[in-house]
């Protein structure tokens, strides 16, 4: 079975995630339909607890939906085994977390190369790829630094480099600037802009409307469901800093 819409890299239909039972039932995600086109930057925004992070986890195969279908590059993925999901995360999806989730005992380049090593790439290939990505995110000179020796913005750039190491079809970012100051936020947004320019598909979850405004398209969530969708003309192709209100 394959997806009929050839332009969507990521697609979900009737997606639902429930916790608890009967009176205690909570629908974190409630019947969500979403399509993400190749090369598109989609922002999912909404207040805390509206289900946007849960949606991201479902789309990335980190959690299983209670109902609904998820398709990645024409392949249905919501029914995959844990093993196949692991392969999917390894080869098809890159994650960026709000808390960075870097291994504190590994230095920057070792953190970036980790997914490649997990996918069975040779140590030499992984190191070369990780070094190139650190160079791309502007941290070539910080490759041997431990996370504790890096600023928040630098840590998040390491995390973004790590998300890109498997050359994923989609990068899913969960509040990527939530722990960063304005300057670091701007650095990260510029990085996303360059990824967008290079044709990378991005899904960014954020509760900050200024960050959401940098995307091609913005979806608002409330109580687990989509309540609004806006196509943005400026997006990441415009004057990013001015649009986001992060400068001056």
């Amino acid at each position: 079975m394959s997806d009929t819409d050839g332009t969507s890299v990521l697609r979900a239909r009737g997606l639902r995630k429930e916790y608890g039972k009967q009176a205690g039932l909570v629908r974190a995600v409630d019947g969500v339909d979403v399509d993400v086109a190749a090369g598109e930057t989609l922002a999912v925004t909404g207040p805390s607890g509206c289900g946007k992070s849960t949606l991201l986890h479902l789309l990335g195969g980190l959690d299983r939906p209670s109902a609904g279908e998820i398709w990645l590059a024409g392949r249905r993925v919501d029914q995959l085994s844990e093993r196949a999901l692991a392969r999917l995360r390894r080869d098809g999806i890159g994650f960026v977390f709000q808390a960075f989730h870097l291994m504190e005992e590994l230095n920057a380049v070792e953190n970036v190369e980790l997914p490649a090593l997990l996918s069975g790439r040779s140590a030499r290939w992984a190191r070369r790829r990780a070094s190139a990505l650190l160079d791309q995110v502007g941290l070539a000179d910080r490759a041997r630094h431990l996370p504790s020796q890096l600023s928040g913005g630098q840590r998040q750039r390491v995390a973004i480099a790590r998300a890109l190491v498997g050359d994923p079809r989609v990068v899913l970012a969960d509040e990527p600037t939530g722990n960063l100051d304005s300057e670091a936020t701007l650095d990260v947004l510029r990085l996303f802009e360059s990824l967008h320019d290079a044709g990378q598909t991005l899904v960014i979850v954020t509760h900050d409307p200024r960050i959401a405004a940098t995307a091609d398209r913005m979806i608002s969530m409330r109580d687990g469901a989509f309540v609004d969708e806006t196509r943005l003309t400026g997006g990441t192709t415009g004057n990013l800093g001015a649009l986001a209100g992060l400068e001056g």
Partner: protein
Amino acid sequence: MGKVRLVGRLVARDLRRRPAQAVLLLLAITAATAILTLGLALHGVASHPYQQTRAVTNGPDVVAEIAGPAAAPHGPGGAPKNNPAPLNEARALARLPGVTAYSGPYLQTTAVLRVRGLASVTQIQGRDAAAAAVDQPKVTAGSWVSPGGAVLERTFAEALGVGVGDRVTLNGRPYRVVGLAVTAASTPYPNMCEVGCTFNGPPGAPQGTGKPGLAWVTVSDARALDAQDLVPGPYVVNLKLEDPATAEAFAFRYGGGSNPPPTAPAMVGWQAIASADALLITDQQTVLSVGAWLAGVLAVASVAVLAGGRMAEHTRRVGLLKAVGGTPGLVAAVLLAENVVVALAAAAAGLLAGWLAAPLITSPGAGLVGSPGAPSLTLPTAGLVIGVALAVALAATLVPAARAARTSTVSALADGVRRARRRATLIKLSRRLPVPLLLGLRLVARRPRRAALGAASIAVTVTGLVAVIAFHTMAGEKRFGSGGLSNPVAIRDEQMLLVLTVALVALAVLNAVFTAWAAALDARHSSALARALGATPRQVSGGLAAGQMLPALAGALLGIPLGIGLFKAVNGSGQAVVPSASWLVTVVLATLVGVALLTSIPARITARRPSAEVLAAETA
């Protein structure tokens, strides 16, 4: 008083919140204290059955052996009727100062006993049908000697596997076993010669006949058997003294002292026979003493791993206690009190278990009558056991308690998890390994102390196992007495070693579970992250298992030389026995498989929890 109550309340609540951990800890320390109690309880208990046997058989205070009429040829009548010398000599012994009664002289000769393919050299004593005044063996089955009927010492009969009514041959002559009996005049099979017997194997005796048994026949049958021997047998005279306590001095004085002339009778005091009786459990005492130490070390490892595994939780609790006004002293007291309470309960349980189990392993065997009963728990024994239990608990929790007391409130509240260590060399090395080994090696690198503790625990277990195997290797020769008979001492030793092995393995299993559980908890975040980055659940589980197996392999390999060394140190002879390579490989492989299986449970549980949930929880 308020503080004591507060500490008590906090301890009770925490124990109630974590009952499984408390029970596991209790079991670990209980096992160690029970083994220690058994070891201590064995001292002295063997003397009770010997005294009971001495009482019911009117056992001698001194056993004297006088030479037979060397010059006299074996005539049809034999001594003493036709050779009055032994009789006169016996009477002379009876007239010695302090002697109140005697029996004998009884002709003693040797013969080869054969039954169902088994053959054993046997010391034969010719006895009258009438009861003797001194040393009348207590018949426990059947009847006393009769023409053509032999009575076998009970332990010897058990080793042969014969009972009343069975037929045996003595030097080829058929005899019927008419009874089984016990005596206090001689040490039961296979230790009869431990008090020094002038034993010569008869012509045609089987090879390797170092452990003779004892049988009683009629005087005429004994003469007939002695007639087949080239050298006439000696005579035994049993003496009762006015003061039994002087038996050894008497034997020394009238037995010719340290340099006896050839004509002097060989004499043995009852104390020497009683000591030789205790040989039955001497090995057990050694095994239990060593076992108690090994179990103690394992218990320390258990407590240390448990305490370490709960460090993050404890640190947060410490932060909370300090935030509401708890002093560093109070914080340390709570941590210490928790394990001390468990240790005291375990000591009580261990003392009770040891006290109840002691009679099972101190049974006198078939060679004596009576039973040792439950050994008395003396105050020093109880004090030592409680002291060891407390030392185990304190040794493992003092460092965490001191660290908790020193931790600042803010950092304790903010970050309960200890920072992982960076081991650049191991990280670099792991990059070239398959994913499970990569993850496993990095887990080891993150928590080297825990890995060292796990390795030490396995090393102690394997040390015990290798020592047991070395014993079996040596006991292969010892297990059988003459002519393929079973050796009751070796059998009891093996039973004791089996109990000890089970206890050590059980403790090691507990430790492996603790270590795996602590490692799985500690690796929650890194495992979830690895899965988010594309590692499969199997790779993550494999990584956790590898993280346990790498130190286990090191511990198992270290345990081999330690086990050989331990056996050499405790086996008395100082002889190094190296078990076969196949056994050693089996031990190492079984250890690794066991650790892998035990780790797979917490590893699977960890891998089952959605990584998003774990990562979200760690962020919160």
